[in-house]
């Protein structure tokens, strides 16, 4: 007991040799541990438990990693292909956007506001021409209306003449 006390104190000071530490481990692995030392049994149990831990097949994992590297290359190629296909489809499908421009008197004009103002001006000019062109048509309408009145007078005259003719026969 006394010897174990000294050995434990030496152990905690980090002064024990490997053989002394083996002795301590052996002491704590048996059933003859004094009550005062029982508290430290778990410490040596913990070290013993840790010693049982093993690496789970490092060589198998090396193969796994090699395969995963290959897979990553395949994935890279596949995803690159998909991305290229998507870009190609979009390029074909989407309408190509070209800059707006107009040709005025043989000159390319890129300013949309200027082109709009020019177009409005030209349209109002066309409107004026149309208005002027329709004026003679209006005169024709007036003539037609007057002719319709003359026709009506002629119809009335014909009716009166028809009514008078039988009267003259009877007489």
């Amino acid at each position, binding site marked *: 007991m006394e010897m174990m006390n000294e050995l434990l104190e030496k152990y905690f000071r980090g002064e024990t040799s490997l053989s002394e530490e083996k002795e301590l481990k052996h002491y704590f692995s048996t059933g003859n541990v004094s009550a005062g030392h029982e508290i430290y049994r*778990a410490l040596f149990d913990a070290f013993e438990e840790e010693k049982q831990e093993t690496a789970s097949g490092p060589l198998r994992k090396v193969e796994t990693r090699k395969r995963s590297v290959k897979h990553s290359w395949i994935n890279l190629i596949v995803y690159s292909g998909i991305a290229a296909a998507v870009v190609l489809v979009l390029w074909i499908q989407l309408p190509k956007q070209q800059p707006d421009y107009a040709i005025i008197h043989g000159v390319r004009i890129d300013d949309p506001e200027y082109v709009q103002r020019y177009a409005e001006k030209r349209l109002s000019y066309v409107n004026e021409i149309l208005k002027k062109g329709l004026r003679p048509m209006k005169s024709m309408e007036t003539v037609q209306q007057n002719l319709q009145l003359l026709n009506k007078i002629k119809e009335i005259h014909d009716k009166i003449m028809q009514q008078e003719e039988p009267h003259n026969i009877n007489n």
Partner: protein
Amino acid sequence: MSDVRNSTFLRLYKCMESIQFNQQILRYSDALFRLAKSILRNTEAAQDAVQELTVKLWERRNALDEVENIQAFTMRSMRNLCLDTIRKNRDEDELPEELEYEERNPYQQTEQKDLAIRIRSMIDRLPELQRTIIRMRDVEGLELAEIAFITSLNENAVSVNLSRARQKIRSQILKEQKRVEETIWK
């Protein structure tokens, strides 16, 4: 005919190389795994580290013949590799170096009844150097000189760190015992 002979010799040579490598390195893979796990505090990361180191050592297997103490050399390589990994991922998952052992709440106490498990948790909370040294000594049973080589310290510094680590664990065990006794008497 000579091609067949050359091919057979090549296969035999590779087979011998593989057997030699197994004898030299793979018999330490469990110890390397435990060291990596102690430093990285993560089982999967430790397995990856063992794998990475094994591949590196296989690539440089011809140089291993000149190494005097293969175990100490591989352990040192493993520690350096793990420290590099921590440096790379410092902001991600490494626990603070000086994290103190915390008192556990009753729920955690019921969950972690086994004192041995709690002690392993206490060791995990020691600074990297101390937990590496205490495990290399008390789990792997390495000489102070070997630990000094692995950690790039002198033997005296190893001894000091080993003492500090053991004293800390002792005080935490005593504290734990006191707390359990108080709980029982309440």
